[in-house]
């Protein structure tokens, strides 16, 4: 079962690199949708089939529903509404982003081997969660468009979710739901903000937010 979990975690990392390396906005959203789906399968892969509980199944179903279906749909809707279909427009180039991404994974792995996480978990789990957080920060910091920053925020939240999986057997179900709701509200608000920015200033470039005056 851990081999399957390792594979899923690896694919999560690869979707992170896809988001860092792609030039298209829609590919970014598809990437984060796939990442959400993989994260939904992760709690199932971490536990053997005989130990699946209603809790595990509910967590998986809820995660897939929110992270892989609802949020990507919402983001696609935002693209359509705000009529943005252009390229990502990074402040840091794609090649440099991917290089920074691999450095992030290396640092996260080095930290993960030293981090005393309670419980018996594959080391890749902690490494992936930290990498996801750093990659999400990278996207948040280096992309000019507000919509891509939402994707970066989602990646960051995905990293936190993976870290939460290390304590899923000890922390109640409600904590996970809280995380999911958190994202949902966050994206909802950001979606509205994106929508309004586009309507008010006819641009999604967050650099222009500095020009706001009353």
């Amino acid at each position, binding site marked *: 079962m851990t*081999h399957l979990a*390792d*594979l899923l975690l*690896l694919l999560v*990392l*690869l979707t992170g*690199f896809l988001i860092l*390396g792609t*030039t298209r906005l829609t590919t970014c959203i598809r990437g984060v949708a796939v990442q959400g789906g993989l994260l939904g399968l992760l709690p199932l892969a971490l536990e053997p089939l005989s130990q699946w509980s209603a809790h595990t199944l509910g967590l998986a179903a809820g995660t897939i529903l929110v992270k892989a279906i609802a949020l990507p749909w919402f983001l696609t809707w935002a693209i359509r509404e705000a009529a943005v279909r252009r390229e990502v427009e990074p402040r840091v180039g*794609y*090649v440099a982003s*991917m*290089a920074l*991404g*691999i450095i992030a*994974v*290396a640092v996260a*792995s080095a930290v*993960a*081997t030293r981090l005393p996480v309670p419980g018996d978990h594959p*080391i*890749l789990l902690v*490494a992936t969660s930290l990498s996801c957080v750093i990659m999400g920060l990278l996207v948040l910091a280096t992309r000019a468009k507000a919509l891509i920053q939402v994707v970066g925020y989602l990646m960051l939240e995905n990293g936190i979710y993976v870290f939460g999986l290390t304590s899923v057997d000890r922390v109640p179900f409600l904590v996970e739901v809280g995380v999911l709701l958190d994202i949902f509200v966050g994206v909802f608000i950001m979606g509205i903000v994106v929508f309004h920015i586009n309507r008010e200033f006819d641009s999604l470039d967050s650099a222009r937010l500095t020009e706001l005056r009353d």
Partner: protein
Amino acid sequence: MTAWPLAGLGAMLVLAPLLPGVAAKTRATLTGRRGAPVWQLYRDLRRLWRKGAVYSTTTTWIFRLAPVAGVATPMLAVLLVPLDGQAALLRFAGDFVAFAALLALGRFTLVLAALDTGSSFEGMGASRDAGFASLVEPALFLGFVVLALGTGQSSLSGMLGGETGSSLSWGAGAPSLAMVAVSLFFVLLAEASRVPVDDPATHLELTMIHEVAVLDHSGPDLALLLYGGALRMGLFAALPVVVLVSRAGLTAPLALGAVLVGTVAVAVAVGVIEASMARLRLSRVPQFLVAASVLASLGVILQLLA
């Protein structure tokens, strides 16, 4: 024991021209055309071999050296790869550096020959060829680093052969092996000048990369270059397959068969990619090649974590 490496070498030397044909046929079939037969390159080679060569008066001996080096270097590199999953004909510690150096030498002479003609188009193609090759090399070496870390060996036969009992096996090592195999497949697409990087069927000098560098060669020289290119493709198509097969613990005849079948399958995969996607814009190619390096470095990290 010694018969199978020889059989592998023979099969590679004889069957290599089949691979571009298989890729082209796959591409033609998938795009709804009939396409040339898979053995078209053999016919081309025979036809070119019977022709005479024409040399421009501005060229020197460097121009005539390139085709010879273009065949000799991949041929020597084949000797280093354990195609039967056991041991190569030629093996010594650190021979993966020799492997990369031989292939780089072949490219170097080709670039010199292209510059020797004094044609601006060929110079442009040569500069692109050299530029992309320098981005491919990190991916290739990082892939070898993964294998060296996993097996504790420093020769290709040790890294890819089944002789040594190593920790790198299917199961625990599967993720990093898969990373290396995919990364080497990207390397193949760049080294063999296939679609996302270069289009072998293009006829516009401005966008050609590899094809433009051999524009001035004719007759037997061109035949040698084409055969060398096919051998190079065979070598890089076999490499990811050998990486996967050598860890399955098969005996020599079975492993050799699996490698040959796998190599043809890789050629089919190349054809499928050619049929399904367009060539990348030149400025996007480095991104693709860096992605190959990223995959290989991910393999290194996984290997260090394990």
